[in-house]
């Protein structure tokens, strides 16, 4: 059994009452039939357009939201609420502005290990502050930090509780390209060092290729499904500086962009068949022919 198993997940929000169209139309699920697995130590990214329910899936994994149908099992136990086993890095960093950097991380550490002595907590906090390269900023308030530094604190806070799995909700969305690259490298390094299992939402195709072992592609909502599971066949030791020299890089990238531009919409509108099961593809390994992506689409 895989480390994390998601089976037939669906989410339907109750139809808003009093709309002019009447109540005859039942509310459509935002997404449905979402099933996938994550192995221990695997880095999984999910890509899809806004409104396909990515964040809802992440919130269900975090235990912050209830799915309408389906189950999530992590490490043999069903997820039905928030837990310290899963660390979350929020989209808007969600630091407590009245606490210093060290206090923000310390708050998480003390929640994880209530019996620890202050010295132990301080040691753990310092370890993760060093890990994300924030030494010297321990006593600063979040308002005195740049966007990139704030997100590093968020990452350090999530890592510091040593969760079994890390959930990242578009953590770099608000950062400029330069800062984003630096922090991506850091995340890659930390994950490699800690063998952390990660589930991450992103809008950035390059980010997904750099970080993920497996990329889940969602069709447009409502009634979004996981249409494809793209296996990142490039060697795991990737670096932002050399990754684009790998011939696989552009095959995977083209495949992802093609999906986002065309197929994600076509599946929703019915021009393409809805896959009952997500297609497992490895576009990086397919020989470079112009028809390769088309072949996958019609497979």
């Amino acid at each position, binding site marked *: 059994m895989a480390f994390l198993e998601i089976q037939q997940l669906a989410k339907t929000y109750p139809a808003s009452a009093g709309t002019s169209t009447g109540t005859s139309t039942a509310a459509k699920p935002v997404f449905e039939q979402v099933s996938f697995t994550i192995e221990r130590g695997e880095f999984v990214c999910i890509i899809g357009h806004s409104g396909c329910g990515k964040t809802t899936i992440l919130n269900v994994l*975090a*235990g*912050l939201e209830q799915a309408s149908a389906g189950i999530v099992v992590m490490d043999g136990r069903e997820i039905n609420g*928030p*837990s*310290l086993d*899963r*660390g*979350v890095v*929020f989209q*808007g960093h*969600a630091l*407590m*502005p*009245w*606490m210093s950097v060290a206090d923000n991380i310390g*708050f*998480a550490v003390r*929640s*994880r290990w209530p019996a620890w002595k202050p010295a132990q907590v301080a040691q753990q906090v310092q370890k993760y502050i060093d890990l994300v390269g924030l030494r010297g900023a321990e006593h600063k*308030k*979040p*308002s005195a930090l740049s966007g990139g530094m704030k997100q590093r604190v968020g990452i350090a806070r999530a890592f510091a*509780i040593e969760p079994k799995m890390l959930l990242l909700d578009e953590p770099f969305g608000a950062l400029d390209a330069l800062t984003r690259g630096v922090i991506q490298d850091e995340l890659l390094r930390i994950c490699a060092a800690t063998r952390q299992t990660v589930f991450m939402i992103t809008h950035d195709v390059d980010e997904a290729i750099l970080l993920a072992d497996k990329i889940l592609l969602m069709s447009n909502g409502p009634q979004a499904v996981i249409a494809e599971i793209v296996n990142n066949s490039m060697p795991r030791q990737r670096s932002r500086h050399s990754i684009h020299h790998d011939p696989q890089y552009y095959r995977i990238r083209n495949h992802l962009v093609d999906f986002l531009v065309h197929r994600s919409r076509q599946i929703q509108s019915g021009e393409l068949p809805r896959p009952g099961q997500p297609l497992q593809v490895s576009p990086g390994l397919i020989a470079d022919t112009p028809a390769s992506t088309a072949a996958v689409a019609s497979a």
Partner: protein
Amino acid sequence: MPFSRNKLRDLLASGLLSLAILAVLLMAWHVATLPAPEPASVATGSGNVAGNNASDEYARLMGQGAKKTDGFPSPAQVGQTIVAQLSDPFYDRGPNDKGIGIQMAHSLGRVGIGFVLALLTALPLGFLIGMSPLWQRAFNPFIQILKPISPLAWMPLALYTIKDSSISGIFVIFICSVWPMLINTAYGVGAVRREWLNVARTLEVSPLRKAFLVILPAAAPTILTGMRISIGIAWLVIVAAEMLVGGTGIGYFVWNEWNNLSLTSVLFAILMIGVVGMLLDFAFASLQRMVTYVE
């Protein structure tokens, strides 16, 4: 924090301007209260000497002697009273003659006790209302009806049930300061950012820790705003309340001096009420700055 040269100059300019305004006001006051020149109106030209004498005597009896003023004290007289009162603020010569310091202490004591009791009520209740829409809706009609009632309207009821004028005063302070704190606490608690609460949830933080380490600091600036409004209202109300119940306090002092027709003392008391009110507001403003955070 060192001031820049420009800022220092601005401060100096505004300070000088304030002094100038004060000087103009004092001068106008002084001129307005100058003794009127010997009136010619009493000695009209009809020549009735006996009648004239009688009206002179009558005038003297009525305290309208040769020095004719309209009774309003001049700035110099008020200044003398201020110096005299402040040089011995804590004298106590019986129930109707106590120093301003003692009276002020009585008022501040009542305000303090009433305010703290209101805070102890408003904080937990505000948390409950702010965190639960159900309780919010349940309490709302009561708050809406009770809030606009003038606190002094409670006074007869308080006097009848409590039967102690001093405690009735405290009750009136309590009832007037509880609403702004309750409403602001509920609002602040209800408006705590969802993501901070989600952080607390994913960290499995216990309800008590969440209340004290997340919600309280997050809502503190709003709560302090409520406290600042409350202390301002309480200080307004205590004067009126003490005028009604009498005995001690700055409000009673004002009323007592009015009965003595000592307008200099009334003016002095008014000034003191203003100064203490300003200091109270200042104290809460600095408390507010302490808990305010930048997002």
